[in-house]
């Protein structure tokens, strides 16, 4: 009896020992598991990934960002909006590697995640939409991306949905609408630029998975005309949004006329454009702005379209008259467009180190000295001279000459009349694709 009892006690103690050992192992492994998913690791991983991106190690960066997303999910839940920053970087790293399919999946995931925030907080939704729109535009800027046109349309549709959500929750005349509307105007400029160059028919009616919905496509000219018409309509709406405000001023109204003129100019409607500029000049004059300030404003060299709306009269800003105009070309897809203001330079890719310094004129009289007549001479660079090129080669100079020659600038006015402006200095930074071409050519 006593033997069996002692045997039983030994068995129980053995079982207890084994169980406790297992328990300790489980605790240790759980601690190790938790250590790998500590909340602060997410930030560290993102920083590590950004460094890797800067060094061109995109694959390693992709792994870091993926891990960061997992850490956020473990700590904050599967649908946490906190994974947004890491997700943005992950998409950038995938785009930089040319992994279009994987980038597309992550963009779709971002869109799904962002939609969830709409019902919770409109401002979070708008912030997410802004970032997603930036990513779509970035994806559309890659020349080799077969879906570039579709991403441009996705960015535009997303901006429209943001507009609809503002109208539904904050009102149809809320000031928040203006930047979103102006961004849609800019997207229409990019779209028209793409259509002019590629002879592309409209992608408007394609389904989101790239299939043509109804075999319906607009012709090239019809599509460009549509972009012009929508842009014009939106600028007029922005005008009325400003006019309806309590602190509406005649100056703001006049500045909006300038933007309307810019839009007409971009679509070759030079006479209507000139009429807007003259109206703006007269309106500024009537509203009591000093003539010298108005002339100073219209002596600035601005490559069109302007990246953002500036509707406050800030003469101190206009003083930088003789400074060099800086133009960072965005993408070969949109050759006459500057990089959007809220964009980072293309992530991880070649920094804009290749550039030229050029000199040109905007003429009020043509080369034969004939009386001024509205022509391209006022709006695009004439007597273009490349002063300096980095790297310096015939190829780089020719590339820059062609690119700068396509730009359209706001005309200079003096006392409301077209004015000659000589010796405009422009620093032109090449697109990433042009960088690659230059390297390939050297």
């Amino acid at each position, binding site marked *: 009896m006593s033997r069996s009892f002692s045997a039983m006690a030994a068995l129980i103690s053995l079982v207890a020992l084994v169980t406790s050992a297992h328990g300790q192992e489980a605790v240790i492994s759980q601690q190790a598991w938790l250590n790998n998913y500590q909340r602060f690791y997410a930030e560290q991983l993102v920083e590590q990934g950004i460094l890797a991106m800067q060094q061109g190690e995109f694959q390693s960066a992709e792994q870091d960002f993926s891990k960061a997303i997992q850490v956020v999910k473990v700590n904050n839940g599967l649908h946490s909006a906190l994974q947004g920053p890491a997700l943005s970087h992950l998409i950038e790293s995938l785009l930089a590697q040319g992994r279009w399919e994987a980038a597309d999946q992550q963009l779709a995931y971002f869109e799904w995640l962002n939609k969830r925030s709409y019902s919770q907080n409109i401002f979070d939704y708008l912030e997410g939409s802004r970032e997603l729109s930036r990513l779509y535009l970035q994806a559309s800027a890659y020349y080799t991306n077969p879906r570039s046109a579709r991403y441009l349309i996705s960015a535009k*549709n997303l901006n*429209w949905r943001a507009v609809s959500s503002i109208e539904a929750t904050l009102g149809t005349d809320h000031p928040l609408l203006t930047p979103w509307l102006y961004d849609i105007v800019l997207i229409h400029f990019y779209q028209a630029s793409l259509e002019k160059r590629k002879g592309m028919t409209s992608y408007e*009616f394609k389904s989101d998975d790239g299939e043509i919905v109804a075999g319906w496509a607009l012709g090239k000219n019809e599509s460009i005309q*549509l972009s012009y018409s929508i842009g014009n309509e939106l600028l007029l709406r922005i005008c009325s949004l400003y006019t309806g405000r309590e602190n509406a001023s005649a100056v703001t109204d006049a500045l909006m006329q300038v933007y309307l003129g810019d839009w007409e100019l971009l679509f070759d409607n030079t006479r209507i454009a000139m009429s807007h500029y003259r109206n703006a000049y007269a309106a500024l004059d009537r509203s009591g702005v000093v003539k010298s300030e108005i002339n100073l404003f219209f002596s600035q060299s601005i490559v069109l379209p302007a990246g953002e709306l500036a509707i406050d009269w800030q003469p101190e800003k206009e003083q930088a008259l003789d400074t060099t105009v800086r133009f960072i070309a965005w993408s070969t897809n949109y050759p006459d467009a500057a990089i959007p203001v809220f964009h980072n330079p293309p992530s991880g890719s070649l920094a804009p180190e290749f550039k030229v310094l050029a000199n040109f004129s905007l003429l009020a009289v043509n080369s034969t000295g004939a009386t001024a007549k509205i022509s391209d001479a006022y709006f695009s660079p004439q007597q273009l001279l490349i002063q300096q090129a980095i790297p310096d080669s015939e190829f780089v100079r020719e590339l820059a000459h062609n690119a700068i020659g396509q730009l359209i600038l706001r005309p200079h006015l003096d006392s409301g009349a077209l004015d000659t402006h000589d010796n405009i200095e422009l620093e032109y930074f090449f697109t990433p694709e042009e960088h690659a071409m230059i390297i390939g050519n050297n």
Partner: protein
Amino acid sequence: MPSIKHFIILTLLSLLTACVVPSDENQPVAGSGLQRLPTDAEVEQYNASVDPDDRIVCHREIPVGSNIPKRVCRLVKDVQETSEFHREQLRRALN
């Protein structure tokens, strides 16, 4: 002679004024409950929030018996169904 000149001028004037008669684009659309046809921007805004089949397409058409283009808007699925119907009719006629 002057009367022929006057006649020609009057005829040309009547033709010209026929071209500037305002289109009925902004008139209420019968039976649709709409006060007017949506603008291009409104169509684009609407299309951004609906399924591909529910999108609207607007463009200018020259109706039979007229030379004046008219803006018409249709649902994509209606355009699709009409196209399919016409294709079917053609198939039947050919067989």
